[in-house]
C-alpha cells in the first residue's frame, strides 16, 4: 500500500491482505467496546471499512464529514502552534458520542457510541487499536500496487454506457 503517499492526496492503494488485517483489528475493537459504529477512512474522507450498525448511519457522509472535521481542526492546531494535527476529536451528544482519532497522518478512525458507554474505555481500546493499525500500515510501506493497473480500457467503455443510462443521455 502506498501509505506514505496518502496524506498529500496521492493515491492510496490497499491490498487484499491489508484490508483483511485491518478488518480483523476493527472487529476486535467493535467486540470490546460495544460501539454503535466504527469507520476506518483515509484522510480524504474515503471510507475503507466499517463495523457495527452500518445501515442506520450514512457511512460515506460520516467519513467525508469526519475528514472535514480533522482538516478544519488541523488548521486550528497550526494556529495554536501544535506541531501536527490534533490526535483525537470528541463530540458529545445526548444519545450518541463521536470519537475521532488520527491513525498515522493519512487515516482516521471514527467511533460512534452510546452515551452510557464510558469514554475512558473507548479511549483505552482505541489507543491499542491505533497502535496495531499503525504497525500494520508501517509494515505495508514499500508494497506497490498501481492505480493505473486497476482501470483497464474495457472499464471506460462499460462506465460510459452506465453513465449514459444514469444521466438519461
Amino acid at each position, binding site marked *: 500500500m502506498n501509505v506514505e503517499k496518502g496524506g498529500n492526496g496521492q*493515491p492510496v492503494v490497499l491490498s487484499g491482505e491489508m484490508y483483511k488485517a485491518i478488518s480483523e483489528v476493527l472487529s476486535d475493537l467493535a467486540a470490546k467496546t460495544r460501539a454503535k459504529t466504527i469507520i476506518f477512512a483515509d484522510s480524504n*474522507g474515503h471510507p475503507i471499512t466499517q463495523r457495527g450498525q452500518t445501515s442506520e448511519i450514512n457511512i*460515506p*457522509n460520516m467519513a*467525508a464529514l469526519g475528514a472535514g472535521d480533522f*482538516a478544519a481542526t488541523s*488548521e486550528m492546531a497550526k494556529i495554536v502552534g501544535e506541531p501536527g494535527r490534533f490526535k483525537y476529536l470528541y463530540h458529545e451528544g445526548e444519545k450518541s458520542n463521536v470519537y475521532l482519532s488520527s491513525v498515522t497522518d493519512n487515516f482516521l478512525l471514527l467511533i460512534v457510541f452510546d452515551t452510557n458507554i464510558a469514554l475512558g474505555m473507548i479511549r483505552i481500546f482505541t489507543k491499542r487499536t491505533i497502535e496495531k493499525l499503525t504497525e500494520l500500515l508501517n509494515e505495508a510501506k514499500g508494497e506497490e500496487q*498501481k492505480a493505473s493497473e486497476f482501470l*483497464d480500457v474495457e472499464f471506460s467503455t462499460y462506465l460510459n454506457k452506465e453513465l449514459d443510462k444514469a*444521466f438519461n443521455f
Partner: protein
Amino acid sequence: MFINWALQEINLKIVYYGPGLSGKTTNLIYIHHKLDPSIRGDLVSLSTKEDRTLFFDFLQLEMGKIGGKTPKFNLYTVPGQVYYATSRKLILNGVDGLVFVADSQKERMEENLDTLLDLEKNLIEIGETLQSFPWVIQYNKRDLPNAEKISTLQRNLNYFNAPYFESQAHNGTGVFQTLKSIINRVVAHIQANGNL
C-alpha cells in the same frame, strides 16, 4: 483516490471550484434531484444561515458494479467567497478532477480570473498544475442577458484548452454533460499515468 483491491472498489474525488455564487452548489443540487436515489447518496451541505457554502457540499455517486469494479465518485464543492481561502485549500487535498464553474456574467470576469489563479496556486501547493491536471470548465448562467460571449470567456479563462460546457445549472442544462466529461477525464488520466 482510494483503491481497495479486496473489494475491487475505487473512490475518486471531484471538486467543483469557482467564484462565489457561480452555481457550484446548484450543480450538486440538480444532480442529487435528478439521479435515481439508488445510485446517489444524500446531499450534505455545510452552509451558513444565508445558504452560502461555509465549508463544502458533498454528494456520492455509486453506480454499482461496472466491468467487475465498483467506482464511487465523491463530488465536493468549495466555498467561493474570497475569505474562505483556507477551506478551499483543505478540500482540494486528494482531488482527482476539477470542474471550474465560471459565472458568465460580464461583471464577474474579474472574480472568475481571481478564482482561477487561486485554484492554480492551490494546485501547485499539492504538486499539480492546471496544465496537466484533469479539469473542465463550465460557463454557467448562459441564460442571463448580461452573459459574456463564449469567445471572450474562452480567451480569458481557458488558457490550457480544457473541455468547456455552457450551462444553466438551475434547470440542468449542461450539468450532466459536464459531470460525464470530468469523470472520463479523471479515468483517462489514471489509465495514462503509469506512475499513479
